[in-house]
């Protein structure tokens, strides 16, 4: 048996619904104690992948191991049912049992494992407190708000300490405050128990801040599998660049190259970014700059591009601006201290940028000082 040491190993997984390839060959492996996230847009196959790992869906082809033990193998026909896979799972649709009250819902996995009644009650109390739902144990699901139901679903998975925790957008209906609390709690549980987590989300911030590694998916394929910073700063494909965080695309030509830095003519002015390698001058390129990497100033160099503020939005920690530069709309994000009025003209500089081939996909990712 070619078992690997990973907590979860997925090899060559594929699954079709009719003509639709929901998963189109997915490979990944989660190490013991790793927080692993599947990140991708709606409908990209995240839930389907998770369900295959859980044993709720049978993949068409591929092989899955949990804790070194094969649980699915299309070649041999092996396909262990979910209850023999020692997993904990939170469903995107909550799947809270409507005929059990909150405490019964959370205690059920313990009951199935034959834990004594008093112990169950104690553990349920603990979990309820953790979920900020103390005292709601006797409520029926129909008397709960959406977020409360999601917390019950989460509590159910946390009640036992499973070998792998599978979470399908478990925080999407929680408010930011609670979400942050739960994120921290999940991290804590995971660290304490060395518990591997397979997390599914469409929320980049959630993925970036919690994960040890992220697999960015699109249309049933993994585009980039790496640590959060790498995903964000050195995205493997244009899709990843585009999906993970906002980005501005500016068509440009190389105007010069000096001392590891490159000057780019973006029409209306020149931007300077760091560049490890030399490119032929005047190549037809696009530079991708994240909003927070665009610096806005009232004044600046003569050849710097000048843009007009079209919209200002408050986002709490700072402002979000829409700019117009030569007919293109750009986004920028600044701290609260940098305030411009709508209609004002600002000078742009770039802190960092990534060069993209206008024709093909992503060519090179370039970090700047």
């Amino acid at each position, binding site marked *: 048996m070619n078992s690997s040491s990973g907590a979860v190993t997925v090899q060559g997984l594929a699954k079709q619904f009719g003509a639709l390839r929901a998963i189109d060959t997915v490979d990944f492996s989660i190490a013991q104690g790793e927080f692993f996230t599947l990140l991708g847009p709606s409908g990209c196959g995240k839930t389907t992948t998770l369900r295959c790992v859980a044993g709720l869906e049978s993949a068409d082809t591929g092989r899955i191991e949990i804790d070194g033990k094969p649980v699915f193998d299309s070649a041999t*026909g*092996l396909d262990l049912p979910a*209850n023999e896979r020692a997993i904990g799972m939170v469903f995107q649709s*909550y799947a809270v049992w409507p*005929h059990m009250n909150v405490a019964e819902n959370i205690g059920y996995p313990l009951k199935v494992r034959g834990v004594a009644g008093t112990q169950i009650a104690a553990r349920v109390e603990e979990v309820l407190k953790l979920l900020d739902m103390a005292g709601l144990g006797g409520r029926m699901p129909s008397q709960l708000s959406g977020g409360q139901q999601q917390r019950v679903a989460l509590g159910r*998975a946390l009640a*036992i300490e499973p070998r792998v925790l599978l979470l399908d957008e478990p925080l999407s209906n929680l408010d930011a405050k609670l979400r942050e609390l739960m994120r921290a709690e999940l991290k804590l549980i995971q660290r304490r128990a060395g518990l591997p987590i397979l997390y599914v989300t469409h929320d980049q911030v959630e993925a970036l801040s919690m994960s040890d590694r992220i697999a960015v998916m699109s249309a049933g394929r993994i585009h980039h599998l790496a640590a959060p910073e790498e995903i964000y700063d050195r995205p493997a494909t244009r899709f990843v660049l585009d999906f993970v965080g906002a980005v501005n695309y500016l068509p440009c030509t190389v105007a010069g190259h000096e001392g590891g830095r490159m000057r780019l003519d973006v029409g209306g002015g020149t931007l300077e970014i760091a560049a490890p390698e030399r490119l032929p001058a005047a190549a037809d390129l696009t530079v991708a700059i994240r909003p927070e990497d665009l610096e806005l100033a009232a004044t600046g160099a003569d050849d710097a591009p000048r843009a007009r503020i079209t919209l200002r939005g408050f986002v709490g920690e700072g402002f979000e601006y829409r700019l117009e530069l030569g007919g293109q709309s750009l986004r920028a994000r600044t701290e609260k201290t940098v305030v411009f009025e709508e209609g004002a003209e600002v000078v742009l500089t770039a802190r960092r940028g990534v060069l993209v081939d206008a024709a093909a996909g992503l060519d090179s990712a370039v970090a700047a000082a």
Partner: protein
Amino acid sequence: MTTSPTAPFENPRAARVWRLFGDGRMVLMIALALFVFLTVLYPLFQVVWRSFIVEGSLSLANYEAVFLRASNFVAVWNSLWVSVIATAISVVIGTLGAFVVMRTDIPWKGALSLLFVLPFAIPPLFSAMGWVQLAGPVGLISQGWRAMFGPGPVPWNIYSATGIIFVLGVSNYPLVFLTVAGALQRVDPTLEEAARTAGVGTGRIMRDITLPLVKPAIYGGGLLAFVSSIDNFGIPAVLGMRAQFYVLTTRIYEALTVPNMPLATAMSVLLVGVALVAMVGFRRAEGGRSQYAVIGGKSTTPGIIKLGRAKPWVVAAIVLTILIVVVAPLFALVLTSFLRFWGAPLTWEFLTTRHYEAIFNTPAARRGILNSLLLAAGAATILVFTTALISWLNIKGRVRGAGTLDAIGLIPFALPGSVIGVAMILAWSNPPVGPALYGTIWILLLAYIMRYMAFGLQTSRATLTQIHDSLEEAAMASGASRMRTVRDITLPLLRPGLVAGWILIYISAFNELTVSVLIWTSGSETIGVWIFLMQDSGFTGRAAALAVLTLPVILILYLLMRWYARLEERRQKRQG
């Protein structure tokens, strides 16, 4: 390979079978298949087998005899169209009634829903007689009509196809009512609210949203009503023969009186064929499996529609309907039980309680009531669980073959009661193995199980399709085995459907006549047997009195159910 407790198979099919065994589904499947074989297939085989025997050797002569007579085709055609129209009436009354009672703010809901199921407790023969007494040539309504519009014939004739259709329709609608009412309770109200906020009025919501969502239940109840119509004998016998209007069951009865049992069984096979084709049609129309999963993991409380200005009208319509389809025949029944003889003039001197006295003075009749109470409870309980499991294997467990079990279980419902009775005698007088059950009370239990399996299958199926898969999946992911999941999650969620099925079976079995009368023995008499025998030997009053006595049983059952529902409600309301 040593690390894995599960033997991996080279052959995927072998692996699949292994998995089915591993989680108990296959064991369950085998047990249920055995159950269905013993209670349905084996007796059925006895009947079908005889239809091919002529004077001791295999022959198609019986079928030739059936198919060569044009009047049989007329009877098939009559059975079909009469049943279709009667079913339509049942579906309309049952669905509208269920909707109004379950989902609007109409007053007296408890009493209304009781009244709506009450006609189910009246044996069809009595419905027919009751309607003759009401609307027959010299019936009460006809007399009233003549008093108002002068002498002469009334503009209707109860002895006609129309009469049969009407009485079948108003007798069978409780089947639809009970199934649909259960489903309506479970529809996620936000689906209706979504339509409401989109600017849709109540009527249109019902047509476009609610009805399609409970469609499986409507089809399920409709199927029961249809099969109930096509296999009914009492109503076409009383109302049809005088008009020389024959349906298959009355033809089969004739064949049985000759007696030409092989011929009767051959005709029964024809009836089963017709009913099966109809069932397949219904099932087709029910449509896809997951389209209707409305019991989801996101919970909401059921919504009640405010009738507003329409309320008085709706109340009036409901009361009128109940007066016509419930109160009138019940009145006729109760009246009969107090009249010295059937058809006596309505004056004090002809009223009497002696029919009741006679019943209470007959030990066998008293024993019959007790036997019926126990047998009905036994059959209902066994069936509710076995059929729920069959439906589960079919719909959620996705075990191949469970669909066949489901289909087989529906067949006996299309068989005339007398054929089932004959089948039971043939099967259990000298069974190849095991005890001869004929002559004991157990054969009645087996017969009821055979006859009413369809009720259990239909109601549990309608509920199961409404339960979202993720609820079971969550239990599996929590570590519960498949069978444990069924016990802890599926069956409790099925409960409203199971209760409805239990009541359907209980009431039907409680006063079942046609099968029981062929297989009872002294000591195992039932209330249905006594109703039938009294009726048959001319003691119509006593028969009616017995039938009236079954009504309190239904009433108590219903109150128990309400009490249970309130208990459940309180459980739901209980706060931590």
